[in-house]
C-alpha cells in the first residue's frame, strides 16, 4: 500500500522567554532577553500507509499538536524529515492543503460572522470540489451530524459542540486524502460524540481517507482507529496496533466485589496473605467495595472462592483492564518505567 505519511527523526524546539513572577517581575521581564529552549518533539519516526486509521495520544504537552502542526505544514521542524502525500508540508503548504482536511478542536475554520452554509459554499469554490463529491459529502454531513438547523445561523451564535460538528463537516467536505483531526470530539455530549465517530468512520470507509486523530478521549481511538501512537514528552513510546498495545500492557485483571458488610483492616490483611499465593493482591478496599487484581492466567476461580469464603458478597464482577486504564497507568509511571508491561 502507498505511503501517506513518512516521518523520520522529526524534532521541534521552541524558545521561551523566561518571565519572572509578580508585577515587578513582569516589568523586569520586559527588559530581559533570557530565554530557555523547550523541546516539544524529540526525534520521532513513523510511517502511515494510505487508508490507515491512526490515533495519536499522549498527556498534555506530550507534543501531539506540535507534531500535527508540522505534518500540516504550518510550522517548520527544527530537524528531521517528513513527507505527506509525497510533499514536504512546510515547503509546499498550498499544494498539500488541497488534499488534506484539518480540524483543530480549539481553532475553528468557519467564518465567524456569517451563517455556516456560507463557509461550506466558500470551501466548495476554494477547493474546487466536484459537484458529485460535494453532493455526497455535504448531504452526509448535514444528515449525519444534524446540521440542518444550524446552516443559517452565524457561527458566533453556535455552542462549542455545534461549532465542532460544523467544523468537522467543513474539514471533510472536499473528501481529503488525509484528515488530521485534533480533538474532534472536544466539547460534545456523549450521544453526539457517538454520532461524530460514526460519521468519521463511514467517511473514511467511503473515500479511503487516511486518518490521524489526536484526542484525550480514548473511545475516539478504540472506536475509529486500528493503530496507536503514544507520545510522551516529545518521544514516541509506542507504535503498533490496538491489539498489540492491549497484549503488551493489559495483563492485569480485576475482581470487583460489593460486600454486605465493610471489610475490616484485619480481614484485609489475612485476605492479602492468602491471595498472594495465587498471584493476587488487594488493589482497593473502600468500605463495602473490594477490588482484587491479578496477573496470573486462570487465577480467577481460586481468588473468587477465597473471597466468597471470607465475606458475604452482594455482587461480583470480573474485569479485563481497558485501554483507558492502561494509558492512565502509563502516564502515572516514572519515565524510565513507562514502557515496562
Amino acid at each position, binding site marked *: 500500500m502507498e505511503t501517506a505519511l513518512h516521518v523520520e527523526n522529526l524534532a521541534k524546539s521552541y524558545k521561551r522567554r523566561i518571565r519572572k513572577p509578580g508585577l515587578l517581575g513582569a516589568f523586569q521581564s520586559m527588559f530581559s532577553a533570557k530565554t530557555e529552549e523547550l523541546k516539544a518533539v524529540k526525534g520521532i519516526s513513523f510511517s502511515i500507509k494510505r487508508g490507515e486509521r491512526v490515533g495519536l495520544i499522549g498527556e498534555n504537552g506530550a507534543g501531539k499538536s506540535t507534531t500535527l502542526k508540522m505534518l500540516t505544514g504550518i510550522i517548520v521542524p527544527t530537524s528531521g524529515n517528513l513527507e505527506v502525500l509525497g510533499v514536504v508540508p512546510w515547503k509546499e503548504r498550498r499544494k498539500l492543503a488541497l488534499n488534506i482536511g484539518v480540524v483543530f478542536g480549539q481553532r475553528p475554520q468557519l467564518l465567524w460572522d*456569517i451563517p455556516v452554509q456560507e463557509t461550506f459554499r466558500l470551501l466548495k469554490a476554494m477547493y474546487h470540489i466536484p459537484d458529485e463529491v460535494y453532493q455526497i459529502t455535504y448531504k452526509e454531513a448535514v444528515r449525519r451530524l444534524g446540521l440542518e438547523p444550524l446552516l443559517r445561523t452565524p457561527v458566533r451564535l453556535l455552542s462549542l459542540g455545534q461549532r465542532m460538528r460544523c467544523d468537522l463537516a467543513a474539514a471533510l467536505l472536499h473528501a481529503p*486524502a488525509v484528515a488530521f483531526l485534533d480533538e474532534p470530539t472536544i466539547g460534545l455530549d456523549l450521544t453526539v460524540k457517538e454520532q461524530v465517530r460514526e460519521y468519521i468512520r463511514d467517511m473514511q470507509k467511503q473515500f479511503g481517507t487516511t486518518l490521524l486523530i489526536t484526542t484525550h478521549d480514548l473511545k475516539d481511538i478504540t472506536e475509529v482507529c486500528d493503530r496507536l501512537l503514544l507520545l510522551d514528552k516529545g518521544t514516541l513510546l509506542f507504535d503498533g496496533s490496538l491489539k498489540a498495545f492491549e497484549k503488551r500492557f493489559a495483563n492485569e485483571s480485576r475482581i470487583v466485589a460489593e460486600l454486605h458488610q465493610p471489610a475490616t483492616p484485619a480481614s484485609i490483611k489475612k485476605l492479602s496473605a492468602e491471595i498472594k499465593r495465587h498471584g493476587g493482591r488487594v488493589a482497593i478496599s473502600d468500605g463495602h467495595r473490594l477490588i482484587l487484581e491479578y496477573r496470573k492466567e486462570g487465577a480467577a476461580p481460586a481468588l473468587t472462592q477465597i473471597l466468597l469464603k471470607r465475606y458475604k458478597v452482594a455482587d461480583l464482577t470480573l474485569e479485563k483492564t481497558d485501554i483507558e486504564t492502561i494509558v492512565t497507568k502509563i502516564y502515572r509511571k516514572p519515565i524510565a518505567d513507562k514502557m515496562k508491561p
Partner: protein
Amino acid sequence: MRPLQQPLSLSASLNGYASFFVRCMKASFAYRATVITNLATTAIFYAITIMVWRQVYSQNSNLTISSSQMFIYLLLAGCGNYALGGMVVEFRIGNRIRTGLIATDLLKPVDFQISQGIQALSDGLFNGSLSIVVFLLGFCVFKEQMFPASLQALGLSILSFLLGLVVMYGIGFVFVQGAFYTYSGYGIFAARNALQGTFSGVFAPLSFYPPVLKTVAEWLPYRHTIYTPISIYMGWAKDNDAYSLILQQAAWAVGLLLLGRFLMKYALKQLEIQGG
C-alpha cells in the same frame, strides 16, 4: 480511494478568491452598531477639524487655498480616511497570529497575502461605500464646487483611490510581519496609524506642511493613500503630473506587496502556533 487533487487552474483559483470576497462583504454587514458608531465618531472628528480650519481662515486670508477648497479637501480626506480606516490589516492579522487562528488560514489552498488582501479590500470598499453618503451630502453644501476638475480627473482619482487601498494594504502587510515576532498587532497598528495620520495628508493638504515634513512625506508611501487621489480629483495634479503620481502609487503598491511577501517567507519559518 479518491485520486489526489491536482493544483488548481488560474480560473478555479480566481473563482475561490471571488467567493471569498463575497463572503467578506457579507460579513461586513454583521456589526451594524459598530458601523454606525464609527461613522458618528468620524463625523464628529471631522466637524471639529473643519471648525479649527474655519478659525484659521477667519484670522488669515492669505492662505494659498480658498476656505471652500480646504473644506472640500477635508471632506474628501475624511471619506478616504474612513474607507482606509476599515482595513485594520495589522490589527486583524496580528490578532490571528496572537490567537493562533492564522493556522486555519495557512491550511487553505489559497495564497495568504492575496486572501488577506481581499479581506482588506472588501473592508475598505464597504467603508468607502458608506462614505459615499457623506460625499453626496458635500454636494448639497458646496454644490458645483464639489465637482471634480474634469471627467479625466474623476476617472483618474477613482483609479488612484483604488490604488491607494492597495498601497494601504501593502503598508499594513509589511508592518504586520512584526507581529510574527512580537505576537501582538496592537503596537504595530498604533505605530502605523500614527505615521499614516501624520504623512497621508488627512488633517491638511501636504502643501501646508513645513518643508522638512513635506520632504519626508514625499519619500514615504502614506501620501498616496489620501493626498494623491484628492489632489487629482481637485485638479491640483493634472495631465502628466497626475499620470506620474499614479505610476508612483502603482510602484509603491507592487514594491510593498513584494517586500511583504519576502518578509513573510522568513517570518513563517519561525512561526509558533501557541497552545494545543
